[in-house]
């Protein structure tokens, strides 16, 4: 019998709600209240997330965010700033002690990224893991990933780009040197791709989610059972949203 993990699909949440749910699931899983969990989600409105160690005001043009109605949030994971627009975001929460999870952090990045790669393969896209935290196809990035470990529990979340607007992304992000901004944008256009660009057609969230479900099931040899957040998780995520991800203290802390 295959081990059963939980699958959540929570579409159209705000940036702070999304990050709060990820943290709530870590707490619930670490207390043994829920099984290991894979979640697929997106961002409504579109949002910038920054890595735990980044300076919000160094990385993000907050005025442009306000003008364009783009949300922003500091993640609990390290890594870089990401513009979440047309994408599927996944998160996986599993105990550090689980036999499927390598103890070594870098190795566990690779293992979880392989699930994403298997999902992409379901869509007919061949891809490759590039350490530390990228997945590329035809030499271009299609997925970025970030991991944290808290209370002996692993959380990894990452993006799978369904479409990408590099110009809009750069209107929201600050660059260290304005003089080379045009060149930087041209470079990034060469280095980033999306499911739409690779396949030449749009694939909807539901179909990407179905492909990713298969990818995670195959990689971890589990069955994903669709479920919803528990009452406790909803309560916890409201608390984390209020005290942390929706609070200025947290988002502006660096």
């Amino acid at each position, binding site marked *: 019998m295959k081990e059963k993990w939980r699958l959540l699909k929570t579409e159209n949440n705000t940036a702070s709600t999304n990050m709060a749910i990820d943290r709530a699931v870590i707490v619930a899983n670490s207390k043994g209240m829920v099984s290991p969990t894979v979640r697929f989600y997106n961002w409504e409105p579109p949002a910038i997330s920054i890595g*735990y*160690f980044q300076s919000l005001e160094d990385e993000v043009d907050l005025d442009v965010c306000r003008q364009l109605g783009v949300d922003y949030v500091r993640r609990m994971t*390290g*890594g*870089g700033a990401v513009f979440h627009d047309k994408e599927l975001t996944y998160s996986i929460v599993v105990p550090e002690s689980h036999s499927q999870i390598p103890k070594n952090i*870098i190795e566990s990045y690779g293992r979880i990224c392989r699930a994403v790669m298997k999902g992409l393969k379901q869509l007919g896209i061949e891809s490759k893991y590039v350490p530390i935290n990228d997945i590329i196809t035809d030499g271009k990035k299609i997925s970025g990933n970030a991991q944290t*470990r808290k209370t002996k529990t692993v959380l990894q979340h990452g993006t799978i780009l369904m479409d990408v607007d590099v110009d809009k992304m750069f209107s929201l992000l600050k660059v260290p040197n304005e003089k080379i901004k045009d060149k930087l944008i041209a470079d990034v256009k060469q280095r980033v791709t999306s499911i739409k660009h690779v396949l030449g057609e749009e694939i909807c969230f539901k179909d990407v989610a179905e492909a990713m479900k298969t990818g995670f099931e195959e990689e971890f040899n589990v069955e994903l059972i669709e479920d919803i957040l528990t009452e406790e998780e909803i309560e916890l995520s409201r608390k984390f949203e209020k005290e942390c991800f929706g609070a200025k203290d947290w988002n502006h802390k*660096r």
Partner: protein
Amino acid sequence: MQYKSVYKVPNGKLLKISLESDEKNNYIESINITGDFFAYPEETIEVMENELKNISLNRERLLEKINSIIKKYNIEFIGLSAESLTEGILMCLK
């Protein structure tokens, strides 16, 4: 004196330091270590920033102190290292 540096860690991530030093640039008065690297556990970066206060801006002394903080708090860097953090800090003075 206030300084900033941006340092691309070889085979690693982008490190951004902002530093306040005494007038003679002998020691660190305060420091912010930001960037797109990874450190586990994450909260130890604030501990690192605190422990680097009043530390001499001398390569050997700095590296030794950073290594001892890493050991004491069991910090794991990815895309960053004690050596590259030292380099990024000293780059502020160039």
